[in-house]
């Protein structure tokens, strides 16, 4: 087995070109290894690469852990980070890993979708930044090309003051979301609603957003209509974790509750 311990992105890219599998926090890859689903014999460890663990303003290095996001991330992203796994998982798992795995239930992804973040990629032939909705293309499928490395996620320079994350699951700790959601609202009413676990990729609900963005002071009836639109617009499935109809219902309830928090 070959394992690289590089300290620079250039060295990581050389290893990727040679066919190495990238390893960050290990919280997804090692589960596959332990269960015999994956047996990489050429691996490049990312945790010693300072550029990946750096965090400057709105550019969050791919190697930034949940623990750090929980302590110093924008509010809704910090709230999301706090619900990921356990302290042990949050000390290891990274935002870049969440993006790379691209699970429909990725807890960090609704925030990226709500604020229209971009995913920054680098390869030995150059770099590109891809808007979140062009990056997540299906269940655990992304636009990442062979030889490309996720180096950071970039948020807009200014984020809405009012933002909230919420998650529905079977228990409080160590839970994979049945539904997770971020709502943000600007002073002019512009509202974004992104949900996870209710479609093949993290998704925005544009009709619900348009409807509620046009209302300066939502009434009880507006909120009810908003929740109905959210429930109508999501595309959940029934699986071992929940049912289609429960997820649809919970999406509307959760989005409405988070919006009410933003309106307070």
């Amino acid at each position: 087995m070959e394992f690289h311990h590089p300290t620079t992105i250039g060295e990581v890219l050389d290893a990727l070109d040679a066919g190495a599998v990238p390893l960050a926090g290990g919280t997804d890859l090692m589960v596959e290894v332990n269960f015999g689903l994956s047996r990489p014999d050429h691996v490049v460890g990312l945790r010693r690469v300072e550029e990946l663990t750096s965090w400057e303003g709105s550019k969050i290095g791919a190697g930034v852990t949940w623990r750090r996001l929980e302590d110093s991330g924008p509010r809704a992203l910090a709230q999301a980070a706090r619900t990921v796994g356990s302290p042990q998982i949050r000390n290891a798992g990274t935002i870049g890993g969440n993006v790379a795995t691209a699970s429909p239930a990725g807890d960090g992804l609704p925030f990226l979708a709500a604020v229209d973040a971009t995913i920054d990629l680098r390869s030995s032939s150059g770099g590109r930044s891809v808007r979140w909705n062009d990056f997540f293309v299906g269940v655990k499928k992304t636009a990442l090309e062979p030889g490309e490395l996720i180096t950071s996620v970039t948020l807009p320079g200014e984020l809405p003051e009012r933002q909230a994350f919420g998650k529905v699951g079977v228990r409080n700790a160590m839970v994979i979301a049945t539904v997770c959601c971020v709502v943000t609202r600007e002073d002019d009413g512009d509202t974004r609603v992104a949900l996870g676990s209710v479609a093949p990729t993290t998704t925005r609900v544009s009709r619900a957003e348009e409807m509620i963005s046009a209302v300066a002071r939502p009434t009880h009836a507006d909120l009810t209509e908003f929740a109905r639109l959210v429930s109508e617009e999501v595309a959940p499935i029934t699986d071992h974790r929940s049912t289609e109809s429960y997820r649809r219902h919970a999406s509307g309830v959760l989005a409405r509750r988070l919006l009410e928090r933003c309106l307070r």
Partner: protein
Amino acid sequence: MIVTFRLNDEAVNTRVSTPISLLDALRDDLGVFGTKSACEQGECGSCSVILDGEVVCSCLVMAADVEGSDVTTVEGISGAGVHPVQTAMHEAGAVQCGFCTPGIVVTAAALFEGNQHPSTDEIKEALAGNICRCTGYGAIVRAFEELARE
């Protein structure tokens, strides 16, 4: 390949030829058995160790990735003595079958390292990733509440 790291303050080498976990390297190659193997997916916390100052699940760390790192297992948590969290658990009767205990000792030691007087909520949150099937957690939480008051 040979991986060299510090285990409980001593330099050790282990040979890895497959992408095994640190947990498997500890138990199968290095003969350190305090760290327990159960779920192997980061859900149960029985394999908790301190890696470069932070508590992690050793089942989710690739052994080859600890080159040059510092690893502390339950055996090294207090040098030759008994750690205050161990005394607290003993006195509170917080150990039944004992399988989860090493992971809880390591996790609690990391908690008290950063915060000598954690609140009950902080204790519960710190232990959220350590599953115990015997105690119902009452005595474990009480042990650390007691220690937090000292």
